[in-house]
């Protein structure tokens, strides 16, 4: 087997909020082009883990390496790190005072000082990719939840990240809108994007994930290929969880 390029390495990560220890010694490795899906009950630390990888939460212990480089949030320029690591949120967090197109163009223009005309062309292409070309000039308030999330994905892709993190991207959506967002994410996975996805969509995990990691009480209890996790989980806690949600 050829050598895999490790994009993200999380080593013995610890994170507490006050007295509550949310992440206890989490270790995780994601190779280039892999899709890792994090599953687990709410409060198990899934979201906190990917927020730590985007440095929206600052770890209390352990190490996070992006493309082999250990990141120190106090010393390293986090804007540069985040330009490589995109993030999509449960509640979309689109900029309500900007049109769809402006949402997508904002970060390249401001953070990268990119050329305006070129950024616009790229943004339009991205909107086409997520199937929202005709919505370029409207404000986010007139979009459905599914459309908002697809814009958020396009906005994140506009920075040409090498890694994408998804924090429960379909949890705030009406059931009939979940499919279109998952479809967009599937396309991304097929394009070879490295992804970490927190989700409760088990069908999606089965279909798209290279690895599924089950988290419980701040730890990754089990990480395996999806067929193994879903058909033959090794850990009792994984089995219990899957019995409850499937």
């Amino acid at each position, binding site marked *: 087997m050829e050598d895999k390029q490790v994009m993200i390495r999380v080593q013995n990560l610890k994170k507490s909020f006050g007295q509550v220890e949310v992440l206890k010694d989490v270790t995780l490795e994601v190779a280039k082009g892999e899709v890792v899906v994090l599953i687990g009950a709410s409060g198990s630390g899934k979201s906190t883990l990917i927020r730590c990888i985007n440095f929206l939460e600052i770890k209390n212990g352990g190490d996070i390496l992006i493309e082999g480089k250990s990141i120190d949030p106090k010393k390293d320029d986090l804007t540069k790190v985040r330009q490589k690591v995109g993030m999509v949120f449960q509640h979309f967090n689109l900029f*309500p005072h900007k049109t769809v197109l402006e949402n997508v163009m904002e970060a390249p223009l401001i*953070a990268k000082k990119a050329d305006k005309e070129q950024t616009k062309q790229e943004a339009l292409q991205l909107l086409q990719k997520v199937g929202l070309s005709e919505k370029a000039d409207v404000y986010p308030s007139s979009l459905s939840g599914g459309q908002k999330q697809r814009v958020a994905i396009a906005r*994140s892709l506009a920075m040409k990240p090498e890694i994408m993190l998804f924090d429960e991207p379909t949890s705030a959506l009406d059931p009939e809108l979940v499919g279109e967002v998952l479809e967009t994410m599937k396309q991304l996975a097929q394009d070879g994007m490295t992804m970490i996805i927190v989700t409760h969509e088990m069908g999606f995990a089965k279909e798209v994930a290279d690895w599924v990691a089950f988290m419980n009480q701040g730890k990754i209890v089990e990480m395996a290929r999806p067929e193994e996790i879903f058909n033959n989980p090794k850990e009792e806690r994984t089995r219990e969880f899957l019995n409850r949600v499937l």
Partner: protein
Amino acid sequence: MPSISHLTEEFFRTLPFFWKPLLLTFELTVASVIVGSIIGLFVALLKVSKFKLGQIIANVYIMVIRGTPLIVQIFVLYFGFYKMIDLGQFWSAALALAIHSGAYIAEIFRGSIQSIDKGQMEAGLSLGMSSSQTMRRIILPQAMKRSIPPLGNQFILSLKESSLAAFIAMDELFSLARRLSAETFDEMTYFLIVALYYLVIVMIFTYVVHRMEKRLAKGDV
């Protein structure tokens, strides 16, 4: 109580005298609100920053301004400035009013900034923008919009408070009313007339702010 006909008569007779003071009141208000907004924005940003010393300076400023009467502030600033740097009467008064309203405007801006969903800052950061870029491009435009109704209110307060500039010999609206009543001993008439001037400006201004709010409502969730 003066009769309506007397009031009307006096209103039109004194109309020409009122133009200049009216303009001055307006200039004082606009200058103090603009400078006050700049001070307010700066102080609000200090307050929401992680910069401890900045927070302390902002808090002390707001505490002192809110804790002392405006007329005292005007006198202190007017005579204080007058002795140090001669800003002239207009700017001494305008600056005193600006420093005063700046404290209240700072609290308006701070409230609006903090009312913006924290997901907005996170979205900006996650896209690789710096926190100051996100503040400037994403948070502030939304916060400013939310600040407009309370800022309109503050503008009205500043307009009325500018009457205190009469006590440092500025010939604005209230000062003229005082002079006219002192000359004629017909106090009630002139104070009612000047009240009408203030009332009309406030009504016009309220209407303008209302229109602005409606126009800015686009893109709201």
